[in-house]
């Protein structure tokens, strides 16, 4: 009989889900979305994603090096997710060098200065996107039409820093949301579902995003209550407005399928680090995002509200966690 016994304390069993597994599930769920983006926007999509992911990985590596941390923080896959998600929020013709800066900002400002994985308040990808929005307001709202040119680069992709190359290939168009907002013009339901519309890389195919959401929910990778509460709130609230004045307000299904709503609900709001973890907090968080999205889209100056809605609710997440603590077993009151 063998004498060498390993000693440690219980428990000696562990659930099969590890943080790395969770992160890689998210990456797998993103692959079809990446494929769709490539299908609609060609090489531009792949290049943007590659550059953004590279920027995130390099930044994460730099920070862990300077902080003498274990290099394992690259292994967990979270930087890859941030890179992909950031790229998916960008327009297809976005200059690559700007995307790189976005990636650096996302990881550097969005995650590492807070202390790395798990410590940050804001979703890093959205923070990177918000940074780009304020730094390059024109480039980030220049949308090109999906034209099925797989290898034709959107000319603006290769623009060099400080040379505005936007006139090179200016087949741009307004997104469905902007059309709605500024010209009161609806887009075909089916085009939205398939994704054959203009918009950012990842916000185009509603059907794929929903499938990804269902997959991640069933595998218990993320908390399904978050996307569900967002979608319900947006649907019901915009439904009320639509019933009041269908001329002025968009229909609820349009609200759900257009813009980055599904991308945000499925992949951004569900980031465990920046969403609440108490049961009640999760519902409030989802309701809050849904409410803000509708408010910003219908009454704000911007056609796109998901980014700000999620970031705003990120900022109240610590408070939500604090005030929705569950009563401890055997105690009369909270706390």
């Amino acid at each position, binding site marked *: 009989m*063998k004498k060498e*016994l390993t000693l440690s304390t219980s428990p000696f069993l*562990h659930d099969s889900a590890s943080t790395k597994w969770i992160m890689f599930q998210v990456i797998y769920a993103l692959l079809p979305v990446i494929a769709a983006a490539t299908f609609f926007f060609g090489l531009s999509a792949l290049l943007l994603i590659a550059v953004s992911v590279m920027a995130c990985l390099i930044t994460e590596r730099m920070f862990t090096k300077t902080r003498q941390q274990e290099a394992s923080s690259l292994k967990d896959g979270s930087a890859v997710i941030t890179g992909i998600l950031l790229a998916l929020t960008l327009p297809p013709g976005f200059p690559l060098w700007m995307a790189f800066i976005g990636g650096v900002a996302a990881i550097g400002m969005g995650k590492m200065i807070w202390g790395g994985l798990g410590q940050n308040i804001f979703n890093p990808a959205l923070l990177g996107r918000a940074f780009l929005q304020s730094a390059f307001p024109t480039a980030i709202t220049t949308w090109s039409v999906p034209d099925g040119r797989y290898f034709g680069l959107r000319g603006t992709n290769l623009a060099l820093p400080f040379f505005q190359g936007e006139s090179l290939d200016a087949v741009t168009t307004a997104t469905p949301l902007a059309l709605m907002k500024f010209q009161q013009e609806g887009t075909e339901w089916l085009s939205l579902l398939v994704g054959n519309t203009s918009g950012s890389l990842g916000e185009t195919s509603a059907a794929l995003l929903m499938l990804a959401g269902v997959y991640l929910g069933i595998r218990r990778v993320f908390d399904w209550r978050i996307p569900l509460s967002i979608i319900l709130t947006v649907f019901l609230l915009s439904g009320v407005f639509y019933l009041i004045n269908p001329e002025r307000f968009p229909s609820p299904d349009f609200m759900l399928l257009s813009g980055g709503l599904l991308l945000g609900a499925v992949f951004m709001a569900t980031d465990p680090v920046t969403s609440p973890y108490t049961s009640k907090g999760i519902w409030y968080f989802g309701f809050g995002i849904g409410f803000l999205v509708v408010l910003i889209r219908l009454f704000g100056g911007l056609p796109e509200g998901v980014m700000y809605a999620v970031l705003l609710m990120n900022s109240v997440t610590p408070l939500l966690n604090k005030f929705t603590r569950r009563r*401890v077993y055997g105690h009369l009151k909270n706390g």
Partner: protein
Amino acid sequence: MLLTFSNGVHPQEFKGWTHEKAIERLPFFEDYVIPLSQHIGAPAKSLVRKGQKVSRGELIAEPTAYLSVAYHSPVDGFVTAIELAEHPGGKMVPSIKIKADRFSAQRMSKKTINWKSLSSKEFSQQLQQSGMVGLGGAAFPSHVKFAVPDDKKCDYLIINGCECEPFLTADHRVMAEYPEEVMKGIEILHHFLKPKKTYIGIEANKADAINKLTQAAKQYPALSVEIVTLEVKYPQGAEKMLISAILKKEVPSGTIPLDGGYLVSNVGTVAAVAEYFESAKPLIERIVTISGSNIKRPANLLVPIGTSLKQVLEACGGFKSSASGESTRILLGGPMMGMAQKSLDVPIVKGTSGILALSPAEVRNFDTYKCIRCGRCLDACPMFLNPSTLGLLAKKGMYEEMLEENLLDCMECASCSYVCPSGIPLVQSFRVAKAINRERKVA
């Protein structure tokens, strides 16, 4: 809908290896070690000398306080030493070593004890003399547990047949093979405790036990026993969770179940109580599940207390040959709350419900990551604590702040560590924090 409590986890059961294996008696070996503190409370005092002959079931150590129990020789034989020996808990404790008489048939004369004529006090004294403790694992002296003080009342007697720890099937076999003993034990307890109602809580994965007990309960219509089928979920067998599941009541923080009129007892203990009053055989053996992927022949064995782990494991064929060259992990108790052992020389004690030999593959070693605030631990904790916050505080060494986060309500069920995807040693650090806070309080 099966009854259950909120939160909890669903670990893989691993009960298939032994749940249909009938209880077998382990043969007698030569050497026995009886630590004098196998129970919770003051150690017992030896009554024997080195070289003295003892017979099976003979009293060899007496209780030294109210919270203390008697010990008996598991075999006919003689005392070889009274000295410090290693206890499965890791400490060296005073122990009586006994060598078995090779020519003895190890029989014991039987006599019944007329329990109906006993007063409550005499009943309690009898239990203390029998060495009875809770067999579910905690080893709390039964005579204290079943003595209801005058200012309290036992309204609900709850018999715990959940056995929610993976691998373990000892209680399951007791219920399936000795349902009459269980009912007899309930009858005895009912006589002294006079509960309004008695429940037997059993998880739904033990259908045969539920059937057998339902049949046996029909013989005792006067007892008002209800058998309750519960959802298979860990830690369903924790006292508080069982009360939540069956009666939908909580035990207020800082009180014990009996304050609310509940008394929960493990089913194996109830059967052992019946056996004592029917045959006068004190607690000198118990049923132990031997299982795990590294055991050649998993089994449920009736083992004399004091037998070394090594002998029990050898009787089960030892470790699988594939284990050679790899380290194996030996646990006493279940994988969620059990204790790892570094030596196979320690004895089976009164609280040993199982011996598990796990291969390294089963004991998954996780890379640890930072807390990603996923909330899985909050959804797992049956006490509704926030293990994530507690874990962050523990990491910073803020042990006193952990008290404000209700550290003391943690029952160390390990559900949080089980689910944490970042592999954070949550319950492990809570145990340390509790110990440090205890010391600081004393200092």
